[in-house]
C-alpha cells in the first residue's frame, strides 16, 4: 500500500515537473503573463462577461515598451533611460523598461538575434551610419522618415544624413557628443601651461608634462575599442577628406598620407607621451587624472559626467580644448558621436514605440536624457541651460570657429572593418615598429570587405 502511494506521489511529481518545464519553455513578457492570467481568470469566473468589457480592461492597461541597451555599467545610463520611461508613462501611459546588457558584444549579438523574432525589443540603443546599415538591409528597422520630416526644422541635415539610407530615415538621435581633449587644470596651472592652439604648442605641453613626471595623454587598448581614438584623430589631423575616403574604402591604409599620420602617432608613442596601453579608460584613467599623474584624456563629452564626475574628479579640475591638427592644412576638425535609439520593425508595440520616438524627437523630449547626463541634445531647439559651462564653451567653439564635424570611426566605417581594425591599432600601439605590417594587414581587412560588396 505504502509502495503504491509512493509511486503515485512520484508520478505526480514527475508530471508536474514536465508540465512546468513545458510552460517554462514558452517565454512570455511580464505584460503578456499578466494578460494571460487575466484572460484565464475572466474565462473561468465570468462566462457572462462580454468581449467589449475585456477590450475596455485592456485599453486601461499601461503599455510597457522594452528597450535593450549596453550602457548599464560604464557608462551607466540606466537611471536616465528609466526617467525617459517614467515621463512617457505620465504623458501617454506608455512605459519604457530599459534592459541593460553587461557587455557590448553580448548586447549586439542578443539584439541581432532578437530583431527578426516576435521577441524583438520595441526600442534599442545602437550606433549610427554603418552600424545600422545591415539591419536596414535586412528590413529589421522601422522607418521614422515621417517623424524626421515632422521635426525637420529642429535637426541639422548632417545629423539626419547619418540616420538616412536610400532616402529613408531610421531611429532618432537622443544625444550627441563631441570628442575634445580633457585636461587637468591643476596640473596645467602648476606648470604654467595654457590650452594649445596649434600642434607645436601641443607638443610643448606634452614635453613639459613629461619632463615633470606627469604622463601627458591617456591611451588604452583595454576593452579593444579605445584603440581607434588616437587613430581617427591622427588621420583627421592629416586631412579630414582622407579620413572620409579611408572610412568609405576610397583610399588604402597603405596610402602614403595614412602612413604619414601613423608616423606622427608613432613619434608620440616613442616619446613616451601616452599611458601604458594596459591603462583602463574607465577605472585607471580617472584615478590617475584625479591624482594629478595624468595631464590629458581624449574622449567623448560623455566622459565628463559619466566617468570623471562619477569617479569623484572635481569639476573645477577639468578643462577642455579641441586637439589641433598636426597638419595645419587639415584645418579645424572635431569628431562627433551620435547616439541613436532605433525602433524594431517587429516591435510588439510598434505604434506606441513610434509615438514615444515622436515625443523624444521634440525639443522637450530630446532634452530629458541630455539634461540628466548633462550632454548635448540633438534637437537644435532643445533647452541647453543645464549644460556645464565647459560643454557650452566646446559647442560655442565648434560653432563660432566653423569646425568641420566628422563622424566617429566606430560608425563611419563598415563594422567588419572596424571590429578587425581595432585589434590592428592595438598591435601598433603595443609595437609601434610593426607599422608596415599593421598597415598591410589593415589593407587586407578592408579589401576583403570592399571586394565582397
Amino acid at each position, binding site marked *: 500500500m505504502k509502495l503504491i502511494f509512493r509511486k503515485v506521489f512520484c508520478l505526480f511529481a514527475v508530471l508536474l515537473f514536465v508540465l512546468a518545464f513545458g510552460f517554462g519553455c514558452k517565454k512570455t513578457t511580464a505584460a503578456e503573463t499578466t494578460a494571460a492570467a487575466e484572460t484565464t481568470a475572466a474565462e473561468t469566473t465570468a462566462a457572462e462577461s462580454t468581449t467589449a468589457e475585456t477590450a475596455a480592461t485592456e485599453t486601461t492597461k499601461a503599455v510597457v515598451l522594452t528597450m535593450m541597451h549596453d550602457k548599464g555599467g560604464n557608462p551607466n545610463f540606466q537611471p536616465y533611460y528609466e526617467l525617459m520611461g517614467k515621463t512617457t508613462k505620465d504623458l501617454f501611459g506608455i512605459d519604457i523598461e530599459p534592459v541593460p546588457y553587461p557587455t557590448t558584444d553580448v548586447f549586439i*549579438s542578443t539584439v541581432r538575434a532578437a530583431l527578426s523574432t516576435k521577441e524583438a525589443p520595441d526600442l534599442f540603443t545602437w550606433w549610427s551610419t554603418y552600424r545600422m546599415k545591415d539591419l536596414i538591409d*535586412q528590413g529589421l528597422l522601422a522607418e521614422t522618415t515621417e517623424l524626421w520630416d515632422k521635426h525637420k526644422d529642429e535637426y541639422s541635415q548632417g545629423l539626419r544624413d547619418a540616420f538616412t539610407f536610400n532616402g529613408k530615415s531610421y531611429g532618432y538621435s537622443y544625444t550627441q557628443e563631441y570628442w575634445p581633449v580633457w585636461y587637468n587644470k591643476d596640473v596645467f596651472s602648476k606648470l604654467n601651461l595654457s590650452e594649445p592652439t596649434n600642434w607645436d604648442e601641443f607638443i610643448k605641453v606634452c614635453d613639459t608634462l613629461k619632463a615633470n613626471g606627469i604622463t601627458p595623454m591617456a591611451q588604452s587598448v583595454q576593452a579593444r575599442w579605445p584603440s581607434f581614438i588616437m587613430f581617427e584623430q591622427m588621420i583627421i589631423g592629416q586631412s579630414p577628406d582622407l579620413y572620409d575616403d579611408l572610412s568609405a574604402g576610397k583610399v588604402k591604409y597603405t596610402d602614403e598620407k595614412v602612413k604619414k599620420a601613423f608616423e606622427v602617432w608613432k613619434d608620440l608613442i616613442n616619446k613616451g607621451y601616452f599611458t601604458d596601453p594596459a*591603462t*583602463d579608460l574607465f*577605472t585607471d584613467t580617472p*584615478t590617475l587624472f584625479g591624482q594629478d599623474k595624468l595631464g590629458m584624456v581624449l574622449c567623448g563629452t560623455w566622459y565628463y559626467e559619466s566617468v570623471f564626475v562619477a569617479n569623484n574628479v572635481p569639476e573645477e579640475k577639468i578643462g577642455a580644448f579641441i586637439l589641433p591638427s598636426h597638419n595645419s592644412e587639415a584645418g579645424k576638425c572635431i569628431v562627433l558621436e551620435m547616439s541613436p535609439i532605433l525602433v524594431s520593425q517587429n516591435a510588439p508595440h510598434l505604434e506606441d514605440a513610434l509615438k514615444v520616438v515622436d515625443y523624444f524627437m521634440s525639443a522637450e523630449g530630446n532634452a530629458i536624457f541630455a539634461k540628466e547626463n548633462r550632454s548635448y541634445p540633438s534637437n537644435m531647439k532643445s533647452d541647453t541651460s543645464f549644460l556645464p559651462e565647459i560643454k557650452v564653451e566646446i559647442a560655442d567653439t565648434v560653432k563660432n570657429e566653423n569646425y568641420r564635424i566628422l563622424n566617429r570611426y566606430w560608425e563611419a566605417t563598415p563594422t567588419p572593418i572596424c571590429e578587425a581594425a581595432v*585589434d590592428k591599432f592595438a*598591435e601598433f600601439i*603595443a609595437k609601434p615598429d610593426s607599422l608596415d605590417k599593421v598597415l598591410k594587414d589593415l589593407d587586407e581587412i578592408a579589401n576583403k570587405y570592399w571586394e565582397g560588396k
Partner: protein
Amino acid sequence: MKKNNFMNNFISYLFISPAFLLVVILLLIPMFQNVYYSFFNWDGISMPVFNGFKNYIAIFRDVDFRISFQNTLLWVAFTLIFPVMGGLLIAVFLRGLKFENFFKSIFYIPLTISFVATGIMWNYMYSREIGVINSILELFRIDKVSWLVNVPLNTFSLLISWTWQQIGVNMVLFLMGLSSIPAEQTEAAMIEGANRWQTFIHIIFPMLRPITTVVIVMALANSFKVFDLIYVMTRGGPYRSSETLAMTMFRETFTMSNMGYGAAISVVLSVIVIAISAGYIKSMLKKDLLYY
C-alpha cells in the same frame, strides 16, 4: 508479472524523461544545429548561404586561429602542470597537518568566487598604474610591468589567475582519493623500509589513479574551453594575442557576426576535446585492467 514489468519500465522512463528532455532540447538539438550552421556563411540576420567545407578550410589558413590554438595548448600544458600537480602536492603535504582544515579552506576559498569576480579582482591587481603587484615591485625599485599587455606575459598572467582559482578543486579531489587509500598498505610499506617518497611513488600515486583520471579529464576539458577569465581580463587582446579557441569562437560568432565560421571553430574544438579526453580515459582504463 509482465504487466508489472511494463509498469516498472514505464515509470522508469517517466522518471528519466525530464532529464532526457533537457539534454535533448538544451544540448543535442543546439549541437546538431551548430554542426549544420558550420557549413554556411551566415551573419545571423540574413539568409544563411551554404558554402560546404569553406569554413573548415579557412580555419586552417587563419593565422589568428593558429595563435589561438597554440595558446590553448599552452593553457592545457600549464593546467596539467600547475593546478593539477600543485593540487596533488598540496593535498599530500596538507594531509595530517595540524591545521589541515584551516589550510584546506584557504586553498578552497578562491573556487567559491565566480570567474568574473576573479577576473575583475586580478585585473585590478595587475593594473600597471594602480595595481598592488606593481606597487610591491616599486618597493624593491623594480620598474612597473604591463602584465596584461606584454606578449606572451599576458597569457602567463592569465594562467596565474587561473591556477589561483583552480588549484583548490584539484586539492579537494586528491584529498578524497588519499582518504580512500587503506592505511595498512602505506604502513606495511613503511615497515618494509620504504621512505615517504618511495611510499608516495610506489603505493599512493598508483592507488590514486582513478581520481587522477577524473582530475586530468576535468582539467583538460576546462582548460580547452576556458573563456570567462580571458574575456573579463583581456578580451583575448591586445591584438588577439591571448585568445584561446573558445575566445576565438566567441569573437568570430558574436563580435564579427561570422556565425558559420564560429560554429566551425566550435566543432573543431569539440572534436579535439572529445578525442583527447576519450583517448586518455581509454588508456587509463586499459592500465587499470592490467593493474588489477
